[in-house]
């Protein structure tokens, strides 16, 4: 697989480390009333879809940036690659 890095261009997926579902960007609020339940979901439950999946990849053997890759889990085709930082900011994290 080739991952079209937004800054570096197409890179071999073997340079990256896979983390999992991009919902991991949204770490729950530890002070919420139901924080325990939220962290259980966050830590252990996954949608695991067959089809489009937004997922985190870390460019360990490159510029060490985190990417959000949109990939079809039934074909491995990658349709979108974004910097995780941009995604997190757009979704209201790290304000």
């Amino acid at each position, binding site marked *: 697989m080739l991952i079209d890095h937004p800054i570096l261009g197409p890179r071999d997926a073997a340079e990256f480390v896979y*983390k999992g*579902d991009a919902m991991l960007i949204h770490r729950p609020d530890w002070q919420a009333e139901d924080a325990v339940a939220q962290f*259980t979901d966050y830590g252990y*439950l*996954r949608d*695991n879809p067959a089809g489009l999946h937004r997922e985190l990849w870390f460019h360990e053997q490159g510029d060490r940036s985190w990417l959000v890759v949109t990939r079809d*889990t039934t*074909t491995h085709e990658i349709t979108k690659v974004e910097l995780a930082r941009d995604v997190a900011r757009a979704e209201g994290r790290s304000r």
Partner: protein
Amino acid sequence: MHYSGFKVIKEALTGHRGWGPAWRDATPKAQYDYVIIGGGGHGLATAYYLAKEFKQARIAVLEKGWIGGGNVGRNTTIIRSNYLLDGNEPFYEFSLKLWEGLEQDLNYNAMVSQRGILNLIHSDAQRDAFIRRGNAMILNGADAELLSTAQIVERYPFLNVNNARFPIKGGLAQHRGGTVRHDAVAWGYARAADRRGVDIIQNCEVTGFRIENGTCKGVETSRGFIGAGKVASCVAGSSSRLMEKAGMRLPIESHVLQAFVSEGLKPLLPGVITFGAGHFYCSQSDKGGLVFGGDLDGYNSYAQRGNLPVVEDVCEGGMAIFPNLGRARLLRMWGGIMDMSMDGSPIIDRTHIDGLYFNGGWCYGGFKATPASGFAYAHLLATDTPHKTATAYRFDRFATGHMIDEKGMGNQPNLH
């Protein structure tokens, strides 16, 4: 029809006209007591033990394709009970004992071959870990023996014991481990279940559940609605896709694992060897092919095929300790979809929906578990209590902090 040596000779002398199909091609009935979803090893074993040990009941196995077309027909056929943790070891040892009596029980030649499995040791720390594991195995009634390098060389003279990075410093052997003919496990259980009246219904995909007031009443399928007293999900790599239809999210990611087989060779490798440090394991099939594999590809996948970097990695691992592998040509390679759980251990449990049960999260190690998984799941379905060897395989262990994490990797499915 009972299979026997006498029957084989009689058929040989009379032109093989007396063999019938091994199981009926059943059409679905409107209602069953138990509907088991998934005609892999675990689903078929569950149906068999349910019919045999626990209840005279109306039982069906629904399979979306053909039985044995999933992971049970794609794995590298290794059986063993060399686990460390209390939640696991009694279960896998129970499974190994069931394998030992399986062929007589099923009246089917599953080619159970206890040729032994050897985990290689490369460092002092690894030796300490394997001694601890071996002791845990012995405490649970399994067999384990620590071998020296000299003992290993005697049995496997072709291993490269002087690899610069991973010299072989010994190994942990389980002599009762080995291999089983994988397709024959599916066929043997199917035939034995069918003989006890189980309907095996192929080309029947479950597309939804009928849930009324928190109780599951049956399943929608590609062949119409089928009512059921109890519905048992048992679809391995498809677990999340299926349970999503009941509104459940699971502690599971689906990943692809590849396997490889070489051209047929003369007998070379007497047992199973695993080179954990280099991510490679290998056995030789009875046809002569070297059957080997390594790591997951590492990303969520339902594609049943992997990518080339892992092919390279597995072959490099093989060459590092088993250099004469390089002279063999690769015949075939394939992939299967693993239900990788968050702690690397399985789930056999009720769900929050009455009448709906779940079996899954087998990772890359569910083949060896087939008999015990079927037995324990049948026990749960029949009695609503877990089998004594499977009490730890609960859904709520993640919430309560009782993970069964053999490798201590944490909640990262691709590392288990």
